[in-house]
């Protein structure tokens, strides 16, 4: 299974390492070459030596997405630091490239909910944070 992860921040790079360790083929696309270091962090070998792929490029560029393997991807994860970028590329992955599983991070709870209703598999970390804060204060949602 090929997992394409766009945006190798804390979340994207951790998920990438976990997916690689689980035996999946993993390709990462990020516009910052330095984010490669986050992929290497905590590993004995470099990301590529461990079997991972890394492409430097802008998420909205079709050439970059193609170079990163979107045409063969079974799973597409949009985890850049911009909600609007994530929502746009997730829809490109779904509608243009027909990727089977598309998962998109959306920090804004309101749009996360609405796009989920539209059929996107959204994950909203803000919502989880709110729930955890409320729970630790003994408040019920």
């Amino acid at each position, binding site marked *: 299974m090929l997992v394409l992860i766009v945006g190798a921040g804390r979340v994207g790079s951790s998920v990438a390492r976990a997916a690689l360790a689980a035996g999946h083929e993993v390709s990462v696309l990020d516009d910052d070459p330095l984010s490669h270091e986050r992929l290497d962090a905590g590993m004995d070998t470099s990301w590529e030596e461990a079997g991972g792929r890394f492409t430097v490029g802008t998420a*909205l*560029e*079709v050439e970059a997405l193609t170079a990163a393997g979107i045409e063969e991807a079974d799973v597409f994860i949009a985890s850049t630091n*911009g*909600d*609007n*970028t994530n*929502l*746009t590329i997730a*829809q*490109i992955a779904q*509608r*243009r490239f027909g990727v089977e599983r598309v998962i998109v991070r959306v920090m*804004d709870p*309101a*749009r996360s909910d*609405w796009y989920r209703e*539209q059929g996107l598999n959204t994950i909203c970390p803000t919502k989880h944070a709110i729930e955890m804060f409320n729970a630790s204060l003994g408040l019920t949602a």
Partner: protein
Amino acid sequence: MYVVIVGGGKVGLNLARELLRNQHEVTLVEQNRSTYLRLEQELEHVVQYGDGTELWVLERAGIGRADLVVAVTGDDEDNILICQVAKEKYLCERIIARCNNPRNLQHFRLLNIMPAVSATDLILNLIEHEVPGHGLVHLLDLPDEQLEIIEVEVTQGAPAEGRRVADIDLPDGSLIISVLPAGGGGFVPKPDTVVNAGDEVLVVLDPGLEDAITAQFSKNGSHG
């Protein structure tokens, strides 16, 4: 008409000014605090502070009753998202999006965010229009209406050269609307107007007929 404009740069500000001058009701949304404060000096309550991609900001701006939503921020993703929620969540009938990078136009099309206006493409079209000897220029595309207007030059030895407009063998779904003679000027032709080599003609057509049309106006039927 009530218009919500998102993005208070040069485009957004001047659009707001023009619309207000023409007695329309306008709300301009700007997310940069210092830009907002500067705009507020001139536009007062017309401008609102906030990230126009957030639903509550759009709702505060009255998107629910907007006749037209215009997204002219400097970010194509933002413009796509603003127009998408305007259309699909708030059922706004008309949208206009600015496309900053012409390479992103395909994404606007994919997500049905039309019309999308690319200043770069508009200027490129004008440059093509000014460059002599260029075979075919797209002057206007109306994707919703399924219409295009092209400009094409009549070359020496082409089937249409020296013929009356009524006799030119154009496909159904196309019509010559102007003749621009080589010497300058331009007019709406009559059926017996004769087109000559070096003239340019403006043709309105259904998309996809370009090749059949250029075949009439250039010698070997190829694009310039």
